[in-house]
């Protein structure tokens, strides 16, 4: 999970295409894949940055990139977190954390009174942290890079017990 934070390709940058171009696979790499499997397989992180591609006016590209970063920087991303069996939900600001580790620690703190278990108790206590993404699907927390996670997470749910078996977040 530690490596996910370091995926440079998904960092937002203001650089022009071609600058800091990471190592490149061939452009015709993804075959026979639909939306789901794109997320599951390793992300095509090192996309070749071709000059003038995609064909979007530079005015528009710059505008979107700047606006998006401004919007993201300025507002907190508050999402609800619920846990099975807990009588009330909590809210967390995902902006506050810089990676999954910090988020997990914070959730541990928040929910320990509901016997979530300490950091050592992950596997034994059998829980999984899931989130609902922009499409309305429930996903396991930790699969995608952090930045992508916080931009697509709408709310979270901590599953326990039999539902969580085999879905342990630490694997």
């Amino acid at each position, binding site marked *: 999970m530690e490596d996910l934070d370091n995926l440079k*390709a*998904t960092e*937002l*940058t203001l650089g*022009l*295409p071609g600058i800091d171009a990471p190592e490149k696979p061939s*452009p*015709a*790499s*993804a*075959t*026979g*894949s*639909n*939306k789901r499997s*794109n*997320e599951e397989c390793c*992300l*095509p*992180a090192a*996309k070749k*940055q*071709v*000059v*003038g*591609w*995609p*064909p*979007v*006016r*530079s*005015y*528009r*590209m710059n*505008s*979107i990139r700047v*606006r*998006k970063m*401004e*919007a993201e920087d300025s*507002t907190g991303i508050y999402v609800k977190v619920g846990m099975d069996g807990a009588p009330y939900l909590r809210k967390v600001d995902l902006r506050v954390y810089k990676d999954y580790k910090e988020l997990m620690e914070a959730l541990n703190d928040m929910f320990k009174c509901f016997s979530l278990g300490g950091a050592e108790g992950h596997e034994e206590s059998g829980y999984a942290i899931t989130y609902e993404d*922009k*499409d309305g699907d429930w996903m396991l927390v930790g699969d*995608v*890079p952090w930045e*992508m996670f916080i931009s697509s997470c709408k709310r979270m749910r901590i599953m326990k017990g039999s539902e969580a078996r085999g879905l342990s977040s630490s694997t």
Partner: protein
Amino acid sequence: MTYFPEEVVEHIVDFLGSHGDRNAVSTVCKAWYQVDRLSRRSVFVGNCYAIRPERVVTRFPEMKSLTVKGKPHFADFNLVPYDWGGFAQPWIEAAARGCPGLEELRLKRMVITDDDLELLSCSFPNFKSLVLVSCEGFSTDGLAEIATYCRGLRELDLQENEVEDHGHQWLSCFPDSCTSLVSLNFACLKGEVNASALERLVARCPNLRSLKLNHSIPVESLNKILARAPHLVDLGTGSFTIDNRSETYHRLINSFFRCKSLRSLSGFWDASPFCLQAVYPICANLTVLNLSYAPAIQSADLTKLVGFCFKLQKLWVLDCIGDKGLVVVASTCKELQELRVFPSDVYGAGITAVTEEGLVAISSGCPKLNSLLYFCYQMTNAALTTVAKNCPHFTRFRLCILEPEKPDPVTNQPLDEGFGAIVRSCKNLRRLSVSGLLTDQVFLYIGMYAERLEMLSIAFAGDSDKGMVYVLNGCKNLRKLEIRDCPFGDAALLKDVAKYETMRSLWMSSCDVTLGGCKSLAAKMPRLNVEIINENDGTSESKENLSDQHKLVLCQQFTSVSNDIMFTSNDPDVCRRVRL
């Protein structure tokens, strides 16, 4: 031949709207040429290097409106060097000398300086309208000149220009006596604009119908402006963020409610979803909605907004609207004619929220759709075939699959059949951009079926010279062909050289064309302007090898031959354009 007095011919010719038709009239005979040239009010120059400005001005002394286009289309995507050219100066100077009655100037992809704007503002006493699209080279100082000296200015429309910010004073330069503004668009300005000067300007221009603000204008100002200009038809909001439940927010809802004439909305810089609700009262009247600069608005809010827009004809959005959002568009916007879906995350991980499903939904729900620009990560032949069947009225179809050479993900086949279906079905197709994995076959289809096609954009496609030849042979009405990163070489380039005389321009970059091939073309067609842009520091040695990346070939058509109009400088280091 029956004799028609000139006045009669002129009267008849006046009914002809299109430039093409008037050009045709002028070639019938000398008398008609004269009638056309003396009565032509609106002149369109599609390529600023195709004809000298003096020639245009001499030929059309009664010209009132001049439109000039400069850089090639691919300049939008940084494929043309900064100092390539496309200067407005010679045009403004020639018009100042020969057509002082000029009222309107429209420039696209040209370089215009503050000095040019100053000259413009002082040379045409009846000047009414300045429209600059994707231009650069000027600052707010130049705008100050226009504001100060153009008495009776009706329109100042700045669309997506790169404008240097030298302060906000320019807007205050509109004198108190200026009451004639009908259209003002400064959305592309990056700096602060004096909001109170703007409010006063709006207050004294009762005919103002179109106003597009930049991001520096806060909602409080927008409220005051809308209060003064309730007859606005076209509004580009400024910054669209406000505190929850504030007084300002309620006033905004009321302001919008009073704007009964509002038909077109854009802007929404920094819009937060909450503020979008203020727009709900007028959604039912909107025919044009541009949300493509609002990345902070997510799918659910976009979808809700669009769900109220029953009369929408033109929609520009970001792909975060998602396939689900497009389904809502399809079921709500039955009058939709134009849709543009832009990518919101171009350097992301290869996933957008829109796929072929969204496009199919739109095609089945919106039968009047005739213009499309769609960015997505995948497309299937089946989807394109369905779209072709549902929407035979496309005149403009531009599909950009973000990953070059990507095949149909379901069948792993090229997208030849899908695009083939489009050109077969859409008999009125005038503009087409293709993408994804494509072989020569798609170009065979395009050559066979796309009879009305005027502009074709190709990237990362084709197998051999045959592809390009199919297009050049088949598309009788082709005017603009732009190709990048395709395996087309000299054989294709030279197959039918006479074809280029019927076209406005050809662009080829990162293809297999050689310097020798270009020289050969130039030798065969002396009336063509064959130009090579060399991006390797201007050293003459590297000109020889055209197979390097970023070596570009541009063919344009002359109507009058001149050796000196191409070059901007005699300095060999600066001048990287070589005319063969």
